[in-house]
């Protein structure tokens, strides 16, 4: 799955949790979920569950800890998809 498609999918997933609309519109690989999108950190676990559901993957605890921004999310999704 290419990067652009993944970013678009992540954008859809984080949309309901995002408090900064403008940052969401400008989402890129460098976007941080908490600092840029102003997502409540408690919601990061919900985002991970939504990612798992969308891509039919399981995100392990170590990966969960790292999934704080778009770049890490892409890496984790791609590696889990490749491992299937």
């Amino acid at each position, binding site marked *: 799955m290419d990067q652009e498609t993944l970013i678009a999918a992540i954008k859809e997933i984080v949309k*309901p*949790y995002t408090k900064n609309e403008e940052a969401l519109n400008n989402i890129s690989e460098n976007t941080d979920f908490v600092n840029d999108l102003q997502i409540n950190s*408690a*919601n990061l*676990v*919900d985002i991970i*569950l939504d990612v798992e559901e969308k891509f039919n993957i399981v995100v392990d605890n170590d990966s969960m800890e790292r999934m704080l921004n778009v770049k890490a999310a892409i890496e984790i999704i791609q590696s889990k998809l490749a491992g299937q």
Partner: protein
Amino acid sequence: MRKRVVITGLGVAAPNGVGIPVFKDAIKKGISGIRHDPQLEALQFSCQITGKPDVPENLQLSYLEPLELRNFNSNGILYGLIAGMDAWKDAQLPINNTGEPDWDSGTIFGAGSAGVDKLREAIYKVDDLQVRRLGSTVVPQTMASGISAWLGGKLGLGNQVTTNSSACITGAESLLMAYERIVSGQAKRMLAGSTSDSGPYIWGGFDALKVCTFKHNDHPAAGSRPMSATASGFVPGSGAGALLLESLESALDRNAKIYAEVLGGYVNSGGQRGDGTMTAPNSLAVQRCITGALQYAGVDAHEIDAINGHLTATGKDTLEIENWSIALNRKGKDFPYINALKSMIGHCLSASGSIELVAAVLQLHEGFLFPNINCEDLHPEISAIVDEEKIPQQLIHKELNLIAKASFGFGDVNACIILKKYK
């Protein structure tokens, strides 16, 4: 002299009306909020009639954001938010959107349990080895203090934010605790209230105790019959009530509308000794609670114009009337007017005290006595103590000065509050 405390805001989510205008209209007209409950019928409950506030999704969206409503399954928190935020707005207090908490305002908002439906969901997932799939929403919806935490966040409260729990006196107790916090000078404003979840997992235990009526499944509106000779148990209810308490000084400074004054009250327990048990009241304790409240408020028993009773429609109503009569030393035509809101909304358990206090405050503020419904066949042991004209079955418009409100609860606990018309 003690600091004076007044009520400047009201909110309610009751089975017969959500929001003060609808609720006020309903209690004046004697409209029952008791309905047939298909879920309880499907689950083969003995009692298949209940009282639940009507809270459609578009109403929910006025109190919770779409994100907050995702995976939301705690109706007690929802009812509490509706009542609490309405009371705040009714008091014309601003929703705090500054970065700074409102240090002078807090809440004591009680609950009997929290998010039982949400907890059930979580239990199924945990047992199914899916703990990681619980997400972020379980804790805030199932912690006992959930409702006060949600309200604290919505309103930006910076004073004490807590939840009390004492069975069916929870609502009355929350008001007294809030009152004391203001009297002691530690807060200017306290949102007092309480909420109760609805649903089979709350009500099942009461059904099993055989304290709910099973004789009125075919005619729900006639099912809740406090003080009636044919009372056969309470009708389970749910909802929330909220009252914004404020020091008189603060209310006058803000030029706020004042509904009534709180003169204080008393809480105690019968210690489950004598005739008191986990489920039955020690009469001596009930009487001491009432006289204790009068004494604290500096009010003579003969000055009480009306009683807002606990009166659940179980066999204990007669005993309650007897206890009032002994504590006040009044009977017959000299007995104060007495009202049982549960005749219209059932027994809203941990929320009952708050919803009933809201009704009592409206009575003082506007000068009326709402009708008691379903007691056209007054219990003879009650009419032997209280003259029938003191148990109004029609709306009465009348200036009232002092109302005594009492609640009694499992654990042999009692609370009594004295409310006064503000002058």
